[in-house]
């Protein structure tokens, strides 16, 4: 039952939007709809009703009265409603207003002097030839210019037109303001000659202005507004049908009243009601009028609502189509996978398939897969025979026979297995690294597994994140994914010239601990680590031979570095001394690698971290290629983890203990700050404080107090980090850049410091004070959210409250920021998605027009540049000097 679409598929050359003319609507129509009902008592569609059988069938087994097709094949056919009186199309109301304003009410000519008219006519002709796109700009200019008080053609005085949203027009005549009926509006629009219509920026052939006032309304076929039958047998109609029922009902009433010669007032009321229904039929969110509601009180979902917004036809059904060959589940970490790999649960691997053509070479293997069937992992779900027939392997009992009947030319839809290329994605897909190609590793359990180094590009963590996986189905797609999208090809970020994939958290701590000067390993330990890292080869000669053979961590790391690598750089733990002692650095923070040997310095975030430009990792990727870089990350990084595993690394708040003298010093610093604040307040009270430029006295006081308190916290933090043992876990993590900062540490051990709301001290709460615990007008530090305690000391209730206020602001900020930047991103992508770089280096739109003459005006690929520059002079000098 597969219908071939070949020969039926056409490509769209161009699209033109026009306004439907009443004649076109009647010509399209197969039925005049006059009855506001849908079905009669027997449940049969009423002729001339909204479910008229000529509009196309939606019931199975019935033939369409118009085209003779059955359900599914019949596309549906439009009907129409003859409106008793014309109504304004609310979508064109603004344009109608502009046209009424610029044309004569009597003769319909544009209100331009005859000379101006001729001038603009000529200009319009010229524009049509040379700058067709600028015609609308010219029309705008004409509309602005056409303001004559007296028509130059018929000498009639012109009156001011007023427009009241959404669909009413008034004319201010000398005898008073009158409402213009849609009939009158339409009559005026009809009078405008074709030549003048053109000057207003419309094409009279496809958009005569009077067509903006509806006299006939098209009725969409039931296929776009299907009724649903509930289990109880009650029919429920679509919102559009409801709205059409309303329109027909009022239209018929209006017709009867006109024919019966009812008073003008009643007719006008009904007319207005008809206008309301037609307006809400198009858009039920028209501003200025109440939305039409369902009996239950829910607003109706009419035409505009169907198309618009996130849940509309475009974003939800066309751009957001759901796809086959995809899977989604929770992710979890697996440091034993390569960065290129993704762990796929067996259950998922048995559902996702790849079509593989049977050849002489693989027939044996394919037979085995078919025999395994859909329930055993390396198996297959379907076979496609050369004649196009599909065999479902779930049902036949004797799969062995089917396997034996397999022949060259068959296609087997086999399960994905180790080594297959798949695309892996985490939303929001903000940059190209949000979708990367991975190689499959089929694993037990139910989560996708990924190497920790690829967390930064996906911005993933494992607190319940889910990710999507897609299986490319064609050989071309797989080749493209493998060459362009594989994780290792994405190590360098195009955002800044640096690796976005690299060491994070424990990797960094591990690397630091391993490469520290005092890390010495016995033969057993060293061997153990190297085996864990996948090193195959001999141990290097030990660094210390007597009294015991010992190896340094640096030696082990060197085994994984390219043999001719030269690199110098500073580590993250660098103290930024005034005079750098380079190799003699007392903190071992000067990293030197000569000929692939780590001579001095520890490896930490600055050398191997994710997102660090000009780092060791960056150098490896750029100079040795992505394969070497991947291997380094798969092997050396595992070495770091193996070391931190065997050494052990933990953290508890009990460890963050300061000696008495340090505590004393911190207390002294804070006391001093408090004193200074008091002094400032005193000065302020006595009027001795001098204003800072551009600030009031109060603001000056606030900033000065903030400064004093900020300094105090910083000083406290410095003291704390000085007195903490260098083996302190939190300190190691902060200094190496693995996790947390010195500020976080200071919060824990020294003092949490000033809590701020909108960049100011806490000021809101009660009248003239923040909390009833303080005197009104108290300007002191304590009363405005300064937290003296550290987390370890515990916060008192007042401090805790201020801290919660500050914390809440942070949460609100992130929530607001994400939604705002999300919308910004959406608009940016919509604007840029069709641009592309052509082979000649220009950036062009799909129609061939040029946006940039050279990509970025310099043609530089940031991911291949040195931090935006084309050459790295320092590196070249170093290389030359080393020779």
């Amino acid at each position, binding site marked *: 039952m597969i219908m071939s679409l070949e020969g039926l598929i056409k490509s769209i050359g161009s699209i033109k939007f026009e306004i439907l003319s009443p004649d076109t609507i009647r010509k399209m129509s197969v039925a005049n709809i006059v009855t506001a009902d849908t079905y009669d008592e027997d449940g049969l569609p009423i002729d001339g009703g909204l479910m008229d059988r000529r509009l196309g069938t939606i019931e199975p087994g019935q033939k369409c009265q118009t085209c003779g097709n059955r359900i599914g094949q019949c596309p549906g056919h439009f009907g129409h409603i003859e409106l008793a009186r014309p109504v304004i199309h609310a979508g064109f109301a603004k344009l109608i207003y502009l046209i009424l304003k610029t044309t004569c009410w009597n003769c319909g000519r544009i209100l331009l002097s005859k000379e101006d008219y001729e001038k603009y006519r000529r200009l319009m002709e010229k524009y049509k030839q*040379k*700058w067709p*796109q*600028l015609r609308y*700009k*010219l029309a705008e200019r004409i509309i602005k210019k056409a303001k004559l008080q007296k028509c130059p053609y018929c000498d009639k005085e012109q009156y001011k037109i007023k427009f009241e949203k959404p669909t009413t027009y008034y004319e201010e005549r000398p005898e008073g303001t009158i409402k213009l009926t849609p009939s009158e509006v339409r009559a005026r629009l009809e009078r405008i000659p074709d030549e003048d219509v053109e000057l207003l920026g419309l094409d009279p052939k496809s958009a005569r202005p009077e067509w903006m006032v509806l006299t006939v309304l098209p009725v969409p076929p039931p296929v776009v507004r299907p009724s649903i039958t509930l289990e109880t047998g009650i029919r429920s109609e679509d919102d559009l049908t409801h709205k059409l029922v309303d329109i027909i009902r009022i239209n018929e009433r209006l017709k009867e009243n006109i024919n019966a010669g009812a008073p003008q007032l009643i007719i006008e009321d009904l007319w207005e009601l008809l206008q309301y229904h037609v307006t809400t039929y198009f858009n039920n969110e028209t501003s200025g009028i109440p939305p039409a509601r369902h009996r239950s009180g829910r607003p109706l979902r009419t035409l505009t609502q169907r198309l618009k917004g996130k849940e509309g036809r475009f974003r939800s059904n066309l751009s957001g189509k759901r796809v086959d060959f995809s899977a989604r589940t929770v992710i979890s970490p697996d440091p034993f996978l390569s960065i290129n790999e993704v762990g796929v649960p067996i259950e998922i691997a048995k559902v996702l398939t790849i079509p593989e053509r049977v050849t002489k070479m693989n027939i044996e293997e394919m037979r085995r897969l078919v025999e395994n069937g859909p329930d055993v992992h390396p198996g297959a779900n379907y076979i496609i025979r050369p004649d196009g027939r599909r065999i479902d392997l779930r049902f036949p009992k004797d799969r062995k026979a089917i396997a034996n009947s397999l022949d060259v030319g068959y296609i087997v839809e086999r399960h994905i297995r180790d080594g297959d290329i798949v695309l892996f994605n985490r939303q929001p897909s903000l940059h190209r690294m949000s979708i990367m190609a991975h190689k499959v590793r089929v694993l037990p359990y139910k989560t996708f597994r990924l190497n920790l180094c690829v967390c930064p590009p996906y911005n993933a963590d494992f607190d319940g994140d889910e990710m999507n996986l897609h299986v490319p189905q064609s050989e071309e797609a797989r080749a493209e994914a493998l060459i362009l999208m594989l994780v290792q090809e994405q190590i360098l970020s195009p955002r800044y010239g640096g690796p976005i994939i690299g060491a994070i958290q424990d990797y960094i701590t591990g690397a630091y601990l391993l490469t520290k000067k005092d890390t010495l390993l016995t033969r057993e330990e060293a061997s153990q680590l190297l085996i864990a890292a996948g090193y195959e080869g001999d141990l290097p000669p030990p660094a210390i031979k007597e009294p015991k053979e010992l190896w340094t961590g640096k030696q082990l790391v060197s085994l994984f570095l390219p043999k001719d690598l030269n690199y110098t750089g500073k580590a993250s733990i660098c103290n930024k001394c005034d005079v750098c002692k380079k190799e003699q650095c007392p903190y071992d923070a000067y990293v030197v690698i000569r000929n692939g040997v780590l001579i001095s310095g520890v490896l930490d975030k600055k050398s191997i971290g994710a997102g660090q430009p000009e780092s060791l990792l960056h150098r490896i990727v750029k100079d040795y290629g992505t394969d070497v870089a991947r291997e380094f990350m798969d092997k050396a990084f595992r070495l770091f983890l193996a070391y931190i595993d065997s050494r052990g690394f933990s953290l508890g708040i009990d460890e963050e203990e300061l000696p008495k003298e340090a505590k004393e010093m911190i207390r002294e610093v804070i006391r001093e700050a408090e004193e200074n604040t008091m002094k400032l307040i005193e000065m302020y009270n006595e009027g001795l404080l001098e204003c800072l430029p551009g600030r009031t006295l109060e603001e000056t006081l606030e900033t000065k107090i903030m400064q004093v308190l900020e300094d105090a916290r910083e000083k406290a933090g410095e003291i704390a980090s000085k007195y903490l043992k260098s083996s302190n876990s939190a300190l190691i993590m902060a200094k190496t850049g693995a996790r947390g900062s010195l500020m976080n540490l200071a919060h824990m051990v020294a003092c949490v410091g000033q809590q701020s709301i909108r960049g100011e001290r806490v000021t809101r709460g009660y009248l003239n004070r923040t909390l009833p615990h303080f005197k009104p007008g108290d300007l002191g530090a304590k009363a405005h959210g300064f937290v003296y305690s550290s987390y370890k000391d515990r916060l008192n209730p007042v401090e805790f409250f201020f801290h919660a206020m500050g914390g809440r602001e942070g949460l609100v900020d992130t929530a607001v920021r994400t939604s705002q930047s999300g919308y910004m991103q959406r608009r940016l992508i919509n604007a840029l998605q069709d641009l592309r770089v052509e082979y*000649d280096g*220009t950036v062009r739109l799909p*129609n*061939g*027009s*040029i*946006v*940039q*003459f*050279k990509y970025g*005006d*310099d*043609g*530089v690929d940031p991911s291949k540049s040195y931090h*935006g*520059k*084309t050459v790295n002079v320092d590196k070249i000098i170093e290389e030359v000097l080393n020779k």
Partner: protein
Amino acid sequence: MVKFDIFKHELVPKARILSKEEVENLKKTYGIRKEQLPWIRKNDPMCKALGAKPGDVIMIIRKSEIAGEAIAYRYVVPW
């Protein structure tokens, strides 16, 4: 009013009107029609200073930190 020569300002890139032959050459090198170039309005200060008329093509030479010089072309349109 004293006329200010905008080209003397260091932030204003150098620019000139292309001759007919140059325009033809440009069209050939990029394989485009004139309208497919980026547009510039005739009352843009740059066009006014150059005296460019609608239909002209102007060449703009910008200084670039990395590429040294970046050359761009603009098609002058009325409006």
